[in-house]
């Protein structure tokens, strides 16, 4: 398989601080790759090394077919970047900025104008080509930045938090653009804290934590792995510890919920054993609520101002069916039902909260 990016023990050290620790990662060609990580995890440093803004302390990386250490200018010619901080000159017009970038990439004179027009039309910013960049809205600035980054037709486009601070409509326009650019055969590296965005767009996701690649898979693969991990962490039912716990629970008054919860907390039981069920009941009343609160399979129940009720119930299909049946049997009129499965955000939280664990090697294989 051809990879757009391959890193080989890529390391960056600032004094005593190891920002990126022997990172090995392979990003598929022509894919949309989500690169995630908490602040300070080494994500930006990695991107800077891959875009040749800084050089690694040790190790190296191949971007397209070029080595970042040996051929930085060839790498720069093959990539485009839309940085988080829009880095167009505010006192130049959109067209002037694009032409400046075209000349800095050494674009031929006859191609410059036509390509600038084509790209501006594609992202729908042609009408503002003579406006100063500082006069544009955040979304328009991002569009102009995308055009400036694409003017030399790069094979790989890095997007660093491209939709931060944008309204939902503009976000969707940019998402469509990312998908369109990818369908044209470009590899997209998307750095984002917006998990929905990453889940929606990305084929593969890598999560970096404390300078190491902590997870690498498809978004669904990561979620499945997390569910399996959680199940594996649960105390086996036939273990000695489990038997002791069961005995303690038997001896505890079931009405004394506080004691039960304390025991559960003490043995490490957490909300991951539960499923969140959310229902909207049009004729909700106190009687129905009291009934639900007394159901043993409902561990927690909360009423919201919107009229919606969210419940933490046991994580089984039978439990969902039972709760719904109970509401209907008690005269409740359900207008909507939703259950919440583990999301990419849950995966991110779980992966990044792990302390000093061995990273995932050879991500992408």
């Amino acid at each position, binding site marked *: 398989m051809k990879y757009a990016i391959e890193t080989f023990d890529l390391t960056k050290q600032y004094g005593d601080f190891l920002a990126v620790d022997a990172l090995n990662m392979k990003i598929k060609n022509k894919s949309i790759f989500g690169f995630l990580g908490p602040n300070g995890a080494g994500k930006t440093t990695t991107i*800077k090394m891959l*875009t040749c803004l*800084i050089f690694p302390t040790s190790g190296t990386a191949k971007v397209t077919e070029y080595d970042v250490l040996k051929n930085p200018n060839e790498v720069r*010619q093959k990539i485009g970047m839309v940085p988080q*901080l829009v*880095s*167009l000159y505010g006192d*130049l017009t959109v067209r002037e900025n694009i032409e400046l970038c075209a000349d800095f*990439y050494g674009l031929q004179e006859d191609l410059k104008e036509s390509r600038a027009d084509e790209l501006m039309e594609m992202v729908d910013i042609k009408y503002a080509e003579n406006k*100063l960049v500082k006069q544009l809205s955040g979304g328009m600035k991002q569009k102009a930045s995308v055009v400036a980054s694409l003017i030399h037709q790069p094979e790989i486009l890095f997007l660093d938090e491209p939709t931060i601070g944008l309204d939902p409509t503009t976000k969707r326009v940019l998402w469509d653009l990312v998908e369109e650019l990818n369908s044209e055969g470009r590899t997209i590296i998307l750095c984002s804290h917006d998990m929905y965005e990453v889940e929606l767009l990305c084929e593969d996701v890598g999560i970096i934590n404390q300078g190491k690649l902590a997870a690498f898979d498809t978004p669904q693969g990561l979620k499945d792995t997390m569910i399996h991990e959680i199940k594996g962490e649960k105390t086996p039912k036939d273990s000695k510890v489990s038997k002791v716990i069961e005995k303690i629970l038997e001896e505890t008054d079931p009405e004394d919920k506080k004691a039960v919860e304390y025991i559960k907390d003490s043995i490490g039981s957490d909300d991951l054993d539960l499923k969140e069920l959310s229902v909207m009941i049009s004729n909700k009343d106190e009687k129905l609520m009291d009934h639900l609160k007394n159901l043993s399979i409902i561990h927690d129940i909360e009423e919201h101002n919107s009229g919606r009720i969210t419940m933490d119930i046991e994580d089984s299909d039978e439990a969902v069916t039972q709760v719904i049946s109970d509401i209907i049997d008690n005269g409740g009129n359900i207008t909507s039902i939703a259950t919440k499965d583990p999301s990419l955000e849950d995966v991110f939280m779980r992966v990044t909260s792990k302390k000093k664990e061995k990273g995932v090697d050879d991500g992408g294989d």
Partner: protein
Amino acid sequence: MMVETKKIWWMFKKDLLVLWRHPPRLISILLFPIIMITLFGYGMGGTLENIPVVVVEQSHGQVTDATLTAIKGMSLYDVKDILTDPDKGKQMVQSGQVKAAIILPSNYDNLSDTQPKSVLVDVDSSDQMASSAILPATQALFSQVSNQIGMQKLEAMNLTSAQSAQSASAIQVQSNQVAAASQGINFQSIMNSINLQIDKMYGNIDYIDFLVPAVIGMTVLFGCMFGMGESLAGERERGELARLFMTPTSVATVVGGKIISKVTVEIVRAIILIVAAIVLFGIVINGSMVLTFLVLALGALCFVGFGIMISARVSTQEDYMQMVMPITMPMMFISGVFYPIETMPWIFQKLAYVFPLTYVNDALRSVMLKGAGVGDIWVDIVVLVGFTALFFALGVTRFNRDI
């Protein structure tokens, strides 16, 4: 090569476009040299004139009249009153109404009197500038009057021997510095047997003439140093430089473009400054105008190089300014902008030679005041070229492409 030229041209064009689109910044850049030269020209460069004085006459006659005419004829003095009471004259000095009281003795008009005639000058020595101007001028005035009296006496006595002429000594001027613990300085003027000739080798050079070349150098220094803060550190802070460094472009190309635009702006400012100095203060440039601008361009290059060296690693404009201020301010005072380096304490004299501004000032003064050619200022040029090469080498090699 063609591509690199295009990039440098863009850097130049971009900087000028940005300047053009910021009228307040453009006006400030163009007005700054005029403000500087006006400020220094009127505030520091002029000669002292019209210092208020009072004259006390205690006798009447030809000598007193001649002396009063001479005092009134000098632009240095503005004679506020002519009194007869010495105490009242002294009181006027003490009350600050006048800066000095010139008290002529009671035997001033008696030519037959062989005793020296003591003229007393009470000076307000708390005003250092006024007293330092009054004392030598008054001394020179009475020396001249003394000579004239001596000659008259010689003619009257029809004597020819030098001994007799010396005995006809004339006026003794006593200076009494009122505020400074009344320390009087006594000096005696005798009829000169030596004829002192002063040859001002470079013409009549006023302080403003001395100041203008250095003010030009200083303006270029500030323009380049502070300008580079906005130009490199500011663009780095706003992420604009990162866009350029993501392209296959060398640091030298980006820096080269910056240098050309900055040096161009500084040369324009220097032209404005020189024109303003000529129009407002009648400055004459004795040397070659081309050489003057070449020295200025070299100075601008050197200071831009210094700015690049400092901004090579800083990430914000504020950091840059904090690093530049402790260097530029001492450089301004130590590099002989306001006073000749030779008059400064020895440690400052030594320090002056590590600042490029010293060499810019020396070269500019040599060309503008003395009419020096390249052969006369080659040491300054060599040192400035050396500094420039060092700054660029350090700046470009240490320059951080990072955002």
